[in-house]
């Protein structure tokens, strides 16, 4: 039996010290040990994006990311987006634009889009589409998701450009 490895990581602002096996993925640890079941493991092959979480601000596939590689790093999951029960502007925009139906892809979409907006606070429609290319949704047809991300960006930046881009992209 291979040795367990002690790691420490901060998940949604809370520090954790864990003893884990090398083969455990970040998705395993978040879901099974920390009961953070927002992220979903769907394709298990880094293609669908349902297991997207942020490690030091970068989106990764929790299904194929060794938990030991999160040692000493900050992890964010969909459970960390709302603050004191108040949804993030992006989460609210997903509701306002009916940007989900079954909801299975939504946590991954939200995390990818959160990272995208932190890097590009005022993205063009094309930048949003490019950023979300690796997240699959079988319900919405994507247009409402892209609309929601652009609306959240417009709300945060108060930019007029994003609304125009949204209309132009329809």
């Amino acid at each position, binding site marked *: 039996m291979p040795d367990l490895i002690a790691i420490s990581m901060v998940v949604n602002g809370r520090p954790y010290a864990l003893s884990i096996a090398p083969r455990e993925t970040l998705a395993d640890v978040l879901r099974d040990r920390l009961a953070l079941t927002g992220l979903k493991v769907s394709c298990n092959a880094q293609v669908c994006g349902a297991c997207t979480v942020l490690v030091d601000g970068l989106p*990764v596939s929790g299904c194929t*990311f060794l938990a030991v590689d999160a040692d000493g790093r900050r992890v964010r999951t969909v459970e960390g987006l709302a603050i004191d029960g108040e949804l993030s502007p992006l989460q609210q925009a997903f509701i306002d634009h009916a940007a989900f139906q079954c909801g299975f892809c939504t946590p991954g979409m939200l995390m990818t889009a959160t990272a995208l907006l932190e890097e590009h606070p005022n993205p063009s429609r094309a930048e949003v589409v490019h950023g979300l290319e690796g997240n699959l949704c079988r319900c919405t047809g994507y247009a409402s998701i892209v609309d929601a991300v652009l609306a959240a960006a417009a709300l945060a930046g108060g930019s007029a450009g994003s609304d125009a881009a949204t209309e132009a992209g329809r």
Partner: protein
Amino acid sequence: MIPRFSLARPRSLAEAFEAFAGAGGEGAYIAGGTELLQVMKMGFAQFETLIDVKGLDELRGIDTSEGAIRIGATTTHRTIERSADILAAFPGLVDLERHVANVRVRSTGTLGGNLAFAEPHSDPATLLLASDARVELEGPAGARALRLSEFILGPLATAREPEEILTGVRIPAARRGEGRAYGKIAFFERPAASVAVRLTVADGAVTEATVAVGSLTEVPLIVKPAGDALVGTEVDPEPLANAIASASAAFGALDAVEDLNGSSDYKRHLAGVLLASTCRAAVREATARA
């Protein structure tokens, strides 16, 4: 589930070689894990020990200062995509990296891991082949450098000895009048067809040209007749279009692998379409560097 393994986290190349030797033939090096963990999950490979090379300083960093571009093996696709130094030295590589797989793979996957895995649909391998890049390998017996054509031997097969570590990639700096570009068509995560072009323009005409194709054949391939067909052409739209048509005719002889992406004929056709846009992008860069 990933099969059980022990993890070694060496801090130097010497420690890494020691860990590999200690694994008694059951070890493998791992970097971003985007390829290796996937095949382990699928049951195609199993290792008792994985040796994580992400802690090795020798495998890090980007250096464009000495007439070449040296990229450390554990540099992620995302870091290359966002490197101002590489954008200045090799814009075609930045454009390529921006479209590798998806944002999550780019955040964790490394250039060295991509090349060492030798997946026939690798984006960087095709462009680096056309660019005459060398991969740097280091093992207990010493260091060596190989061209991509010497390094990639077949699908998922390279000239790397099991104990050797791919430490970095060295790409020649663009010469005066040189342009390098890459184009692909992808229906899924990996390309269906890709083309890389490296050419030199002097006095309004192409003086040197290399064309490589990826994803069509079992390994990325330089198509010498295609490059030769471009040499001598003026870069005005009409003569360039004629030369591109002659060059793409050379793809007819390629042994393109038929798969979910399409038939052999279809893939050869895609390569011809890509050659046109990729040639024009290379000419634009070459003209800007005149």
